[in-house]
């Protein structure tokens, strides 16, 4: 998942955070990496839960 500057803007507004341009850029990258790792693990766990009929 990619995080556009607009998306980061929206999220920071939602969280009432004022971010510098540098922070926006860094956090976009960090969130992207984080989401990628979560994707793999959480998808797998959802499948495991479905296999168990939950």
């Amino acid at each position, binding site marked *: 998942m990619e995080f556009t500057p607009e*998306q*980061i803007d929206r*999220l*920071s507004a*939602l*969280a*009432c*955070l*004022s*971010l510098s341009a540098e*922070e926006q850029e860094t*956090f976009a990258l*960090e*969130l992207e990496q*984080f*989401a990628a*790792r*979560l*994707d793999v*693990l*959480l*998808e*797998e*766990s*959802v499948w*495991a*839960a479905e296999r*168990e009929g*939950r």
Partner: protein
Amino acid sequence: MELRRLSALELGQLLTKRALSPADVQKAAAADTLNAFITGVPFPESTAEGSSPLAGVPMAYKDNLCTKDLPTTCGSKLLRDYVPSYDATVVERLTAVGAVSLGKLNMDEFAMGGTSETSHFGPTRNPWDPSRSPGGSSGGSAAAVAARQVWYALGTDTGGSVRQPAAYCGVTGLKPSYGRVSRYGLIAHASSLDQIGPIAPTAADCAAVLDLMGGKDPRDATSLDLPPVGPPDGDLRGRKIGLPAECFGPEVERDVAAAVLEAAQVLRARGATVETCSIPELRYAMAAYYVFSGAEASSNLARFHGPRYGDRAELGREVKARILLGAFVLSAEGYEDYYLAAQRARALIRRAFAAIFERYDLLLTPTAPATAPLLGLSPEERRSTDLYTIPANLAGLPALSMPCGFDARGLPIGVQLMGPALGDALVLGAAHGYQLETDWHQRIPTEGDRP
């Protein structure tokens, strides 16, 4: 007699018998050269009155526990001037039985971090090697106990923040079962994961502190009415202990794995059965943890906004990153894919623990894959230190870290014992049994004790 080598209970006993005066203890207590304290309180001149076995023993609180008329900063610039008008329940209860607080201890900002480096007040240093971190987020608590600035301290544990610093500093730290200790007056990080826990030289000390501060509190609806754990008996005969293979992967340093397996042998020699087991669901824990802790932190920290608290630009980088992550997983874009998925993962983990504790009384793992890191880790590296401690928080289980050796660099290694929900006495009993057989918990960071 070298007072720094005594446990908190042993020191308390001597104070009760008046074999020691507060002045003797003050002389023995180390000065703060580690930046372990954010706010210090002068040593009391008279003996504290109280009925507890720890009355008069110097202790201190992590700086996210509210203390009436004493600053409570949470390690944050945002709260640098906050002075609560009330005591947290744990503070109130310990004060009532003669606790002598020397002040408030350094921590990662809002308890977010694993090295104590995100504190606005600068990093705490590890007493075994000041170029290294004491761990976090309760780094000040663990460092202060290890250096014997105090004989016990309170920390808080959301994903390992009591156990990991205890391991890095060579002391004993307990995360009680969720609900055993009231969280009233704790500045929340992630309410479904947070627990307040003791850090002390021994498991017996931790049990004593737990019984003094735990129990039902009408001001915390999640607190439970439970009998005290009592002094641990150390009996391991007939206990079945599992070693989850998932916690001995390639990420574990060789010295750490060897020391933990050696600890397993000690438990075996005291009558326990120890065997390898598997909990594959543990691999989901880290992902689920960051979803919940981010979501709950973004919600909990929403209160620190507006004219009263000033500009949230004063928040540190790590806190902002986690709030942003929380806002994302709670947003329409992230809720189903991440938050709901994490809930399913958490349910799987809880079920897996319930099943494994039908076969085993306790689980034994390294507390952290490696010993204390050098100061200056990247945020990503800082987050990977809680790999084995996070699962207990997700499932609300009791878990304890205690020292079990040193690595080749002379840094303490911690071993973790996990028990079933509300099995705190079982965990403390096994840890006490181990400490009756070994002397790692008696080592202090002085020349003679460094390996």
